[in-house]
């Protein structure tokens, strides 16, 4: 590779136990600036736990997490948000009584220093327009459809001016037109240079968007590499993709 790779996130042998259960064991992973990494694996593999561990929701039991050259293993959630780590939730977490605008304004207000309520609302309008929710700006978040609430989550995450963005199943529960729309947004974000780590079950989207794939299984990282290699990796086929998928893929080319 000719370009200089700049590491933004690094995990070295990170583990997380929930009393007896080892949700993550010995995960080492690094993410470079500008990458779009797909995080895949069967249900219960520890994908969301991994994101929670990095963001400080459930701090690592052992191991070290560094972000932008700083140790963030024991950081509080709100601090990680201010550093530029932002995420969307698999189960959307809006402020239900607030309008869509105020939802996004809250994200801008509390994550950026020196922001006032007024300037945060202005910034929020731009982000809502980006995800295509400008018509719903004054509607309360509780009245939005699921697809809209997912996009609202995305707008909130973007209002935090993230350096690293975690997308936790933004496409789950969406129909194919909505998936296409969301995929287009992710492409746009990647083109803007935001580093993205996305948890995703739709392989079509993963292969379409990601520059690299990491595979978790039973809390262990079982593969990490270029998308073309990953889908042929026998361990990944066994654990997650299944023989059928591999054969269909091989037949296609």
């Amino acid at each position: 590779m000719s370009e200089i790779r700049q590491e933004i996130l690094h995990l070295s042998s990170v583990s997380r136990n929930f009393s007896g259960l080892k949700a993550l064991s010995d995960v080492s992973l690094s993410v470079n600036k500008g990458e779009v990494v797909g995080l895949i694996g069967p249900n219960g593999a520890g994908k969301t736990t991994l994101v929670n561990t990095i963001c400080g929701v459930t701090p690592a039991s052992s191991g070290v997490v560094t972000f932008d050259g700083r140790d963030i293993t024991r950081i509080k959630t709100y601090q990680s948000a201010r550093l530029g780590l932002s995420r969307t939730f698999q189960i959307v977490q809006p402020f239900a009584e607030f309008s869509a605008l105020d939802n996004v304004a809250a994200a801008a207000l509390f994550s950026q220093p020196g922001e006032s309520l007024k300037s945060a609302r202005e910034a929020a309008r731009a982000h809502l327009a980006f995800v295509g929710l400008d018509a719903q700006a004054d509607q309360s978040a509780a009245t939005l459809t699921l697809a809209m609430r997912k996009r609202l989550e995305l707008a909130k995450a973007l209002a935090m001016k993230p350096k690293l963005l975690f997308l936790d199943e933004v496409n789950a529960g969406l129909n194919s037109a909505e998936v296409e729309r969301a995929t287009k947004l992710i492409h746009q974000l990647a083109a803007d240079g935001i580093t993205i780590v996305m948890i995703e079950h739709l392989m079509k989207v993963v292969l379409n968007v990601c520059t690299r794939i990491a595979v978790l299984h039973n809390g262990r990282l079982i593969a990490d590499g270029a998308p073309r290699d990953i889908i042929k990796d026998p361990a990944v086929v066994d654990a997650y993709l299944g023989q059928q998928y591999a054969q269909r893929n091989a037949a296609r080319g």
Partner: protein
Amino acid sequence: MTRTNIALLVLIGCVAALPLFGDAYALRLGTMACMYAIFALSWNIVGGFAGYPSFATAAFFGLGAYTTGILMNKGVPLPLSLLGSLVLCLLLAAALGVVLLRLRGHYFAIASLSLVEVFRELVNNATDLTGGGMGLNIPLVSGSSVLSDATFFFYAMWGLLLITALVVIAVSMSKLGFGLNCIRQNETASNMVGLNSTLYKAVAFGLSACFVGAAGGLYAAWVHYIDPSDVFDILYSVKPIVMALMGGLGSPLGVVCGAFVYLGLEEVVWRNYIQIHSGVLGVLIILLLLFLPHGLVSLHAGKIWRGLSGRKAKHV
């Protein structure tokens, strides 16, 4: 400033005219009304904005009363003693808030309730300082005549109410109020967008305690004698919640109206049903909450007007 906040200030302004019309009894009621309104407004910061149902009002009322009482017995003038109560309650509540507000919902309610008992026992046992169960006498402040005394304490309580209302309005329009609103709706998401919820909740708890503490101090100076079972009465914790629910949770104007209405009910019921007054009051409160679950503020003047004109239109 929103229209309801202006309405609140106008309402408080109107109350100030009471001494022009009233006798000593009316002034006593007016002082109680201002005190209740301070309770309700203060509770609204932590209970209405942040959504943490606090039962700690009585704890800080008693603490404020005793702080002022003790300071005045040591010769400190009333204004300074009140300031002492206010600052002590602010700092102590903020510090306790950091710990207590980690609990949510019912757990927090019980923990805040236990605070009242803890403070009461502390005061009961610190006999040298507080007089324990014997109570504490507090030196007279003005004391020239009954009416001038009543007028003085009415205006003092009214002034405290005005300050409380201004602070609460300022909070509701500020980043702090916005953040507390976020915490009430979804605390996980609040943390995720970079809101330091522990800090916000502690500040809210401190603000909700400090004016109650100052009101307690004023109450002590007003009645000249306090004892633990009087000022640490659990009813002081319950009443503000009832007032806020009656008036409309979260709305400063609503909770103040709730406080006035509650006091009115209490007084009327007390006069007419001396034997069964708490029973009648309880039934009235339940009826109000059943038929007006969002409080008095849900009775918008506009809505009533529309309802009336709609009916007229049907007739035509």
